[in-house]
C-alpha cells in the first residue's frame, strides 16, 4: 500500500487542532498547581466559556466580543472558585464538582431560554475564529496541509507556552509564585501575600480556560453542544500531572492527548465502533499515568541505589 502523505498531513492537522484546547486548559492547571491550587472546576468553566462565546456571537456577530465573553465568564467563575477555596478554605474538589454540575445546568437552562432548544445550537449567522493563512508556508506540500485552517487562538496557545515559561522561570514574579507553591508558610513569613497571589493566579488562569472554550465552539465547528467539553477539563488535570506542571512538559503531554483524540476521530471512519474510538482518550489517560508512574518509580529507585 502506498503511504499517502497528504492523508497523514490531514491527521497531523487534526492532532494540532485537538491539542490546542487541551493545551490551554492544561497550562491553566499548571500555573494553578504552581501556587498549590487544585482546580477541578476547569471542566465547567470551559463549558461556560464555550457557551457564552456563542451567546455573544449570536447577538453581536463579532469575533472579538465572543472571545471577550468567553474570557470574562471563565475569569468570573475562576474567581468564584478561588474565593471559595482560598478565602473560605472550602474543599477544592467539592467546590469544583459543584461548579461543574452547576455549569451543566446553567448552560442547558440558558440554551433553552435564549435559543428555545435543548442539546445543540447552531445558526448560519454565527461567525467563527478567523483562519490564518501563512503566505509562503501554505504552498509547501506537507506542512501547508498540516497547518491549514488553524486559527489565531491555536497559534496563541503555543505562544502562551513560551510566555508562561518566561513568566514562571525568568521573572521575579515567577520566582515568587513558585515559592508560594513550594512552601506557602515560608513565603508568607517572607512577606509574600500568598492568598492574593493564589487568587490572582486562578483568576488569570481563567483567560487560558476561556480561550480553550472558544476553540471548542468557534474553530473547527461553530456551535454549542451540551457537554461540548466532554471531560477535557479533567483530562487537563491528568495532562498537568504528566507534564509535571512545567510549561514544556505540559506541551508534550497535551500533544499526547491531542494525538489520542485525533486517532480516535480518524478511526471513526473504520470498522471500529464509536464507543471504542470515543473511549480512547480516557483509556490513554490512565495508561499514560501508569507509564509515567512506573518511570518515576524506577528513577527514584536508581537514585536510591546510587
Amino acid at each position, binding site marked *: 500500500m502506498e503511504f499517502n502523505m497528504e492523508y497523514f498531513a490531514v491527521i497531523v492537522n487534526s492532532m494540532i487542532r485537538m491539542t490546542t484546547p487541551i493545551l490551554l486548559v492544561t497550562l491553566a492547571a499548571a500555573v494553578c498547581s504552581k501556587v498549590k491550587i487544585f482546580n477541578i472546576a476547569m471542566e465547567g468553566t470551559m463549558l461556560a466559556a464555550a457557551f457564552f462565546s456563542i451567546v455573544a456571537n449570536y447577538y453581536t456577530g463579532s469575533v472579538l466580543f465572543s472571545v471577550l465573553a468567553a474570557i470574562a465568564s471563565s475569569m468570573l467563575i475562576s474567581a468564584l472558585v478561588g474565593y*471559595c477555596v482560598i478565602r473560605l478554605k472550602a474543599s477544592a474538589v467539592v*467546590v469544583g464538582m459543584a461548579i461543574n454540575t452547576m455549569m451543566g445546568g446553567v448552560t442547558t437552562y440558558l440554551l433553552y431560554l435564549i435559543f428555545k432548544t435543548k442539546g445543540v445550537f447552531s445558526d448560519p449567522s454565527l461567525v467563527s475564529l478567523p483562519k490564518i493563512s501563512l503566505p509562503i508556508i501554505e504552498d509547501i506540500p506537507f506542512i501547508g496541509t498540516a497547518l491549514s485552517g488553524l486559527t489565531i487562538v491555536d497559534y496563541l496557545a503555543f505562544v502562551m507556552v513560551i510566555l508562561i515559561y518566561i513568566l514562571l522561570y525568568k521573572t521575579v514574579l515567577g520566582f515568587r509564585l513558585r515559592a508560594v507553591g513550594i512552601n506557602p508558610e515560608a513565603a508568607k513569613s517572607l512577606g509574600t501575600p500568598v492568598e492574593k497571589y493564589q487568587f490572582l493566579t486562578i483568576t488569570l488562569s481563567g483567560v487560558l480556560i476561556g480561550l480553550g472554550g472558544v476553540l471548542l465552539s468557534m474553530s473547527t465547528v461553530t456551535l454549542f453542544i451540551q457537554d461540548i467539553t466532554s471531560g477535557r477539563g479533567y483530562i487537563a488535570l491528568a495532562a498537568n500531572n504528566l507534564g509535571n506542571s512545567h510549561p514544556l512538559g505540559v506541551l508534550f503531554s497535551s500533544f499526547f492527548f491531542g494525538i489520542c483524540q485525533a486517532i480516535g476521530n480518524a478511526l471513526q471512519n473504520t470498522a471500529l*465502533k464509536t464507543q471504542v474510538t470515543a*473511549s480512547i482518550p480516557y483509556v490513554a489517560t490512565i495508561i499514560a499515568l501508569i507509564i509515567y508512574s512506573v518511570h518515576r518509580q524506577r528513577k527514584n529507585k536508581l537514585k536510591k541505589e546510587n
Partner: protein
Amino acid sequence: MKMLKSLKLPLISIVIGLVIGGLIIALSGFNPIEAISGLITGGFGTTYALTTTLTRATPIIFAGLAGALAWGSGYPSLGAAGQMVMGALVTSIVAVVCPGPAIVVIIISLLSGILAGMAYSFISIWVTQKFQLYLLIITLMMNYIADYIGSYFASYVVKDPNGLDSSAIQTQLIEEAILPKLIKGYTLHAGFIIAIVATLLIFFIVKKTTFGYKAKMGGLNSLFADYGGIKSTKMMYYVLLLSGALAGLGGACEVLGTRYRFVDGMITSPGYAWSGIIASLMSNNHPIGIFVSSIFLAGLTTGGSSIERSMGVPSEVTIIIQGIITLLITAQFVITFKKKNKDKQEV
C-alpha cells in the same frame, strides 16, 4: 441540641438555595412564587409526586452511601457513577439469561450487580494503589469508560432483539425477575426497602463496629494508622470495595425496579451519582442524613420536571439550585469551623 445545630447549616443553605433559584426563575420571566411552590408540591405534594420522588431517591441513596463511605474514610473517589453503570449493565444481562424462578433470578442478578460494582471499583483501587496515582482522576476516567462500555454492550452485544425502534440503545426487557411495586399503580418499588436496609447497615458499620473506626483512621492518616497496626492499603481495598458494592447494588435496583432493562445513559443522564455526593455532603457523611437528603434532592428533580410541564420553566433550574446549595454548605461549613477556632483562641 447537637442534632439541631448540625441541621442548621443544611437547612439555611437549602432556603438560600431556593431563594436564589427563585431569583433566577424571576429573572427568566416566570412567577417565582408559583414556581417554587410548584417545585415543592410537584416533588412531595401528592401520592404520585411523593412515590415518584422516593423512586428517584433510591439510586441516590445508594450513591450517597457509597460516596460517604469513601469520602468519610478519606479516599476521594468519584467512581460511583461508573460502578453503578456496571452494576446496572451486568444485572440487566444476568436477569435475562439466568434460568429459574423469579425470586432466585432476582437475588442472583442483584448479587451480580453488586459484584460488578466491586470488580469495577477494584480496577480503580488497584491502579491507584499500585502506581501511586490520584484516585480522583482515575475514577473520573473510569466513569467515562464505563459509560462507553455500557453503551457498547447495549448497542452491539446484548442489544434488545425485539426493539421496534432500532436507534434505541437498550438491552432486552426483563419479563419475570423484577422487583415488586410497593403501592399498586405507582412507580415505587422494593429497591427502596433495600435502600433503607442498606442505610441502617452502613449506619451500624460506621458508627458501631471497629471496622468503621479503622476505616476512618486508615484514610485520615495512613501513617498513624500503620503505626496503630491498621494496614491502610488493606483498608483502602475494604472501604472502596464496599463502596463499589453499594454503587453496584444501586445500579442493579434501578434496572430491576424501574427500567427492567439497561438503557444507554440511564445512570449518567439523571446524575444520580453526583446527587449522591451532594447528599453525603449535606449530611456530613451521616447515613441517616444521606437518606433524608437524597429524598429532598430527588424531590427537587421531580418538582423540576413538574414545573417544566406546567409552567415551561426549564427543569435544569433544579441542577443550578443543587449546585448553589452545595457551594453554600462547603463554604459555610468553613465559616462555622473558623468561628469555633477563633473562640478557642480567645479562650
